[in-house]
């Protein structure tokens, strides 16, 4: 179903008037400047998904309320906010994983390339909008089979290993893991280190050639070195896929995100470029959160 009358996206950019009255400027907490990403190379930006007045509730308790925002290829969108603010629920809505929770109900529209995702087959949608989780969770099989998993059974006949080899190597290379595991593709994936496991999960998510990559706090279980490697990877990936990342780590958001959405109590408080949100946020709540007053 194409949306005949798509509802207007609530504009919350810095240069546009906000729907919410701007609070009087008080002597609030000092906003500390967070280091920004060094090379802000401009990439071609294409809008892939649009979230429009989206709400989700679990058994009557609203988790996400009336959120609207665009998701674009060529940039990284970071969802930030305190625990329980609905950012993970919003992320899981994008590939309809919320539907696996029995008591979840939702309202609003989410479109992928102009098509309402509720009209798509969930399995087909999830191959186009893949996801990486907080905990590295490779499947209990070899490295090769982990990446090939998504490619198998997609066709009616199971493809042979040789036919998959190129695609698997490509996905591993895009996730920056190929050089490290090239000789050991048959080793069990659970023997890899935590950071390698997480990059394997990214490779697994990329193998399907998705349009959107969802990352749910992908670095929170990793050491700083692995985190850095994955952050660089995410920045590189935004040219090929639209990247949405949920993170608790504000430094991380400022390092890798082009746009930032700040959520609080299920509502989208502020959406804007990373610089705007971290340095010149219009909402009091956002300023307090990014400066560490609460959260």
């Amino acid at each position, binding site marked *: 179903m194409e949306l005949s009358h798509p509802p207007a996206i609530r504009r919350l950019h810095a240069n546009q008037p906000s729907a919410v009255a701007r609070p009087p400027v008080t002597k609030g907490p000092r906003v500390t400047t967070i280091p920004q990403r060094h090379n802000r190379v401009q990439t071609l930006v294409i809008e892939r998904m649009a979230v429009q007045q989206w709400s989700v509730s679990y058994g009557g308790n609203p988790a996400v309320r009336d959120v609207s925002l665009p998701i674009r290829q060529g940039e990284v969108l970071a969802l930030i906010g305190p625990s329980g603010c609905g950012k993970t629920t919003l992320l899981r809505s994008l590939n309809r994983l919320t539907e696996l929770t029995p008591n979840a109900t939702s309202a609003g529209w989410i479109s992928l390339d102009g098509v309402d995702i509720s009209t798509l087959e969930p399995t087909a949608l999830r191959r186009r909008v*893949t*996801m990486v989780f907080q905990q590295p969770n490779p499947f209990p099989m070899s490295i090769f089979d982990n990446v090939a998993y998504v490619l198998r*059974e997609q066709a009616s006949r199971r493809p042979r290993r040789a036919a998959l080899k190129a695609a698997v190597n490509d996905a591993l290379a895009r996730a920056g893991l190929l050089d490290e595991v090239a000789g050991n593709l048959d080793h*069990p994936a659970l023997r890899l280190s935590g950071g390698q496991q997480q990059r394997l999960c990214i490779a697994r998510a990329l193998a399907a050639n998705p349009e959107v990559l969802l990352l749910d706090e992908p670095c929170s279980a990793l050491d700083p070195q692995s985190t850095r490697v994955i952050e660089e990877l995410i920045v590189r990936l935004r040219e090929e896929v639209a990247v949405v990342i949920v993170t608790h780590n504000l430094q991380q958001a400022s390092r890798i995100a082009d746009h930032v959405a700040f959520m609080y109590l299920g509502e989208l408080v502020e959406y804007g470029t990373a610089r705007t949100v971290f340095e010149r946020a219009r909402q009091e709540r956002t300023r307090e959160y990014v400066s560490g007053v609460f959260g």
Partner: protein
Amino acid sequence: MSTLGTIAPGPPVNGRRGSSSMAMRSASWRVTDRIGLGIAWLLGLIFCAICAAIVLFLLIEGLRFIRPSMLVTNPRAGFTQSQTGGFLGPMIGTVIVALIAIGMAGPLGVAIGVWLAEFGRPRAMARIAESTIEMLAGAPTVVLALFGVLLFESEPLGFLSVTNSNGVVFGKSFFAAGTILALVALPLVVTTVREGLQAIPDHVREASYALGKTRIATTRRILLPAIRPSVITGTMLGVGRVVGDTAIILLLLGDTPLQGVGSAPLLSTLRGTGSTLTSYIYNNAPTGELNQPNKAYAAAFVLLAIVLTLNVLVDVSGRRARERRWS
């Protein structure tokens, strides 16, 4: 360093507390707690001593009487224990019974375990299945054996055993014994499979769904391979119970030499009767009909060796499974 030291002194390098924390050292506990700890230790040691005594007694007695020839000869009629042969037949019987029972309980148990843990709908049916499994686990095997007798002596199932010229169904066969023994092994397989599945974090399943896989594909490609160690453990525990059971063997197999029924190669064995190590021990025990304690001890040694080996294998496979896990 020195300023830090004044704020937070490091742990004492030497001294009475040593490397372990104070709470872990029973020397600092209250008297009642220390008495409790002492009793717990004592009971634990007594329990271990009893188990060790049984195993050691049987091992020593068995080693005294076992002869290599016993493992390769069948029981024979004779007046002295040196004339009555060995227990090759009962050993083969044990293997046959275990194979039949686990061949049935294995796949069925995995299927039930997966259904209970992953699907479990409709709820009411899952709950009934759960309590059935629990009841089965608690049922005395002789009761199950009695049920088996009723079942396999019935006319429609007569083809599974011998029917004599008067049309009376004999009801004793390897198939009958194996089927009822499968009910003994089933709860163990179901329980271990369920526990294995419950130990897999939900985000692993979701990772598969998030790649566009269905629940069936996830179960088949991710969950079943992941619980392979649990399946092996459950199967081995089941085999341990099956080879050690006596009541079902006595009522549904008897204690005869191996004899096939009919001419079809596999079917004749299934329909035929024989004996197992447990029935052999039962009849040769000092209180049994044959009263050949030497043979009983030797056979008990073999049975114990089988069961202990299985337990060690379960332990090893469980340990290897724990090595590779998600956090």
